[in-house]
């Protein structure tokens, strides 16, 4: 019997009788990170990396039953050994290592190699079987270093300032928003959407320091400022209040012109919290896995590519909705 398998509720570990990142209500769920396509509402009991416990509570509910384990700390369920290892994706994100009778499986959750100064840095974990995400599983995705994008973003902000405009960056409220706040060269006041502000508070509790920022309230009238907003946070009223504003979007999808022009923003920054194609291939090599399961994204391309390279690779159905890259 395989150590992990696909059930209609999600990834299942039969000997431990637990699910990893299930998307339907189950009794016991091990959660890789606090994004809503991984940490869902309705589980009787949650197990998560310690730094993500408060983030998950903030998103799902204060009163959920949840246990936290530190990175590298081992816990056992029905004789199956589990441990969390940093995934570098967002603050508190983890890969989940599963070991039973000497056989080791690793589920990456969402991951990236690049050190972003807000997430705990990723490192590969050796295993027999690797379950990897492949949100950006096309060779056309080849990330540039984040320094490049933050320089671009900083210059863009400055340019807009010179023209007397506000700058609005659309970014996922947990992870991307904090990454921007942490890394963008300061050149004025920064406002964030209340949803982002709440996540900032929890991330600061993890020991991350930010440059000064302010929660955007109905009375604020930002001028020449940077406003960080989740993509769903744009409203007509807000746009009116901001006056002349340039809208930018920070997402891996912005790396492709066609996708960029459809998103109808003024400016795209191809800044992603996921691994690019080479990043996925590098992990497959570094993990020394004999078998690779691809999930979460464009699985077919990766699977065929690895198969042709002589790997035992298979696709695991797409459980996850496409998320912000």
């Amino acid at each position, binding site marked *: 019997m395989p150590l992990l398998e696909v059930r209609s509720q999600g990834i299942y570990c039969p000997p431990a009788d637990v699910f990893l990142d299930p998307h339907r209500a189950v009794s016991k769920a091990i959660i890789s990170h606090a994004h809503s396509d991984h940490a869902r509402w309705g589980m009787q009991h949650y197990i998560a990396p310690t730094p993500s416990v408060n983030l998950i509570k903030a998103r799902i509910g204060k009163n959920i039953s949840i246990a936290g384990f530190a990175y590298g700390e081992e816990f056992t369920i029905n004789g199956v050994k589990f441990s969390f290892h940093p995934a570098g994706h967002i603050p508190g994100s983890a890969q989940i290592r599963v070991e039973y009778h000497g056989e080791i499986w690793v589920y990456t959750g969402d991951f990236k190699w690049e050190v972003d100064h807000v997430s705990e840095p990723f490192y590969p974990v050796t295993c027999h079987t690797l379950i990897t995400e492949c949100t950006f599983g*096309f*060779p*056309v995705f*080849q990330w540039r270093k984040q320094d490049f994008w933050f320089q671009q973003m900083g210059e863009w902000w400055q340019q807009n300032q010179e*023209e007397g405009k506000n700058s609005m960056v659309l970014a996922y409220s947990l992870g991307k928003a904090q990454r921007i706040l942490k890394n963008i060269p300061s050149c004025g006041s920064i406002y964030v959407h209340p949803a982002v502000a709440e996540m900032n508070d929890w991330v600061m509790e993890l020991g991350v320091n930010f440059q000064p920022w302010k929660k955007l309230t109905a009375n604020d009238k930002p001028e020449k400022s940077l406003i960080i907003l989740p993509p769903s946070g744009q409203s007509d009223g807000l746009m009116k209040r901001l006056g002349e504003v*340039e809208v930018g979007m920070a997402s891996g999808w912005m*790396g*492709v012109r*066609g996708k960029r022009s459809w998103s109808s923003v003024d*400016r795209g920054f191809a800044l992603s919290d996921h691994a690019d194609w080479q990043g996925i291939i590098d992990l497959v090599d570094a993990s020394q896995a004999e078998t690779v399961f691809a999930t979460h994204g464009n699985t077919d391309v990766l699977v065929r590519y690895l198969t042709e390279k002589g790997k035992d690779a298979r696709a695991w159905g797409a459980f996850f909705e496409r998320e912000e890259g």
Partner: protein
Amino acid sequence: MMDFELLVDRLDATNSTNSKVKALETFFKTASASTAVWALALLSGNRPKRLVSTTLLKEWGCEKQAMPAWLMDECYAFVGDLAETLALLTPNPEIEIHPSLSILMGEYLQHLKSEHLPVKKAWIFSQWETMGPTQRWIFNKILTGGFRLGVSQKLVIKAIARVHSLPEETVTHRLLGKWNPSESFWHELIAPTMEMPPSHPYPFFLANTWEGKLPVQDFLVEWKWDGIRCMAIKRNNQVFLWSRGEEIITHQFPEIEKSLMNLPDGTVIDGELLPVQNGEVADFSILQIRLGRKKVSSKMMEENPVIFRAYDLLECNGTDLRTLPLLERKLKLEQIGWNDVSPFWSVSNEAELEQFRSRSLEHRAEGLMLKHQHSEYGVGRTKGSWWKFKVDPRSIDAVLLYAQAGHGRRANLFTDYTLAVWDGDRLLPFAKAYSGLTKEEIEEVDKFIKANTLERFGPVRTVKPELVFEIGFEGIGESKRHKSGVAVRFPRILRWRKDKPATEANTIEDLRALIR
């Protein structure tokens, strides 16, 4: 290519017209003549032919990236554009090398002449190895013959004019017709004065849709004829008839050519080519029979006669009259001896204007033109002095932007069109219309679409914005749901405006003016 790359990046990074002009100005201020002229050529669509077929380029991409063909195809299908796919797949070099645009294009032209494929391939590979991401994209777009950016020629002209302290219309004027991206052309373009070939037309002055609000007594009123706006030129004892599509159509209308020869030398007339039947202006369709014919038989001329009706005199005895007040030009026009001058008059109030407008159809006109009596003959669609006031304003000239295949019998033909109007220098889609064209026209448009696809997204194709259609609709209103802010009811294609270049399609302001 550093400077041009930077320009492309900056143009790409903004939707604001101001920032675009600023970026263009910065570029043209510092670029060498040879780089500037190539940039102008690429930005205004005057680009060289593609160097290799896309099939071959794809093969070479696979070879260079050691990638199986299926993987390339998957990537291409995902990205939707081959040039970009290849640019994204190429690894970034340790050190980028930036040849100047003129050197790159010089080498390009040399390889274009060569038949030797391995040489072309080696050259392309060596470029890929040393270029950064933006450079690769530009290079690949040129290779595939599809380089295009979201800037109109008007913006480019504006920037060049500002940098070299020339009037915009001079630059516009000098760019009309065919030119080569050579250094010497660039020097002529930015020179204080330039010798013009005798065929050189002036840019047309265009009208906006009448919005009222102005005192009607200040305007000269004339019929808005429904034909083809043309400019007739006689210089050096030669005559030229230019359509608004910047095409010389003299030889398609030998009878007009003949009578133009009777004009004095150094004459330029703005007027309308009109079909006539029994001495009256006839339906536009008759004119279409005459259009595009290479050989015109006398029978054809007899059965489908046309006339050239003069509106305005732009040049007299070789002197440019365009800055004279309209009324003076009109009076000179009547003395020049042309046999058909469009009548004009004045009105004293709105009611009178409305009366004339309601009688347009009796006169076989599509409405009225209001031109300020003191107006100069300007350039392009400058707002303020010339207005059109159509009888049935519920039609608009729009540019074909996206196309999709039809259903059933028409499944192999592109018959669903998404049409757009100008919003500044951007095209804004506003209506989807099914073809109301003839079978032959549908096939012709279909061919165009297949040969001019810029991007594919599933079944939808982005088409080179070139074809202009007149779209009729039943109603129009404001809409928050539509990107254009306007929703039209029952749009249908009235006709294909082959006589209009895309730049002269209507604007979003024209469309909004129809909401009352």
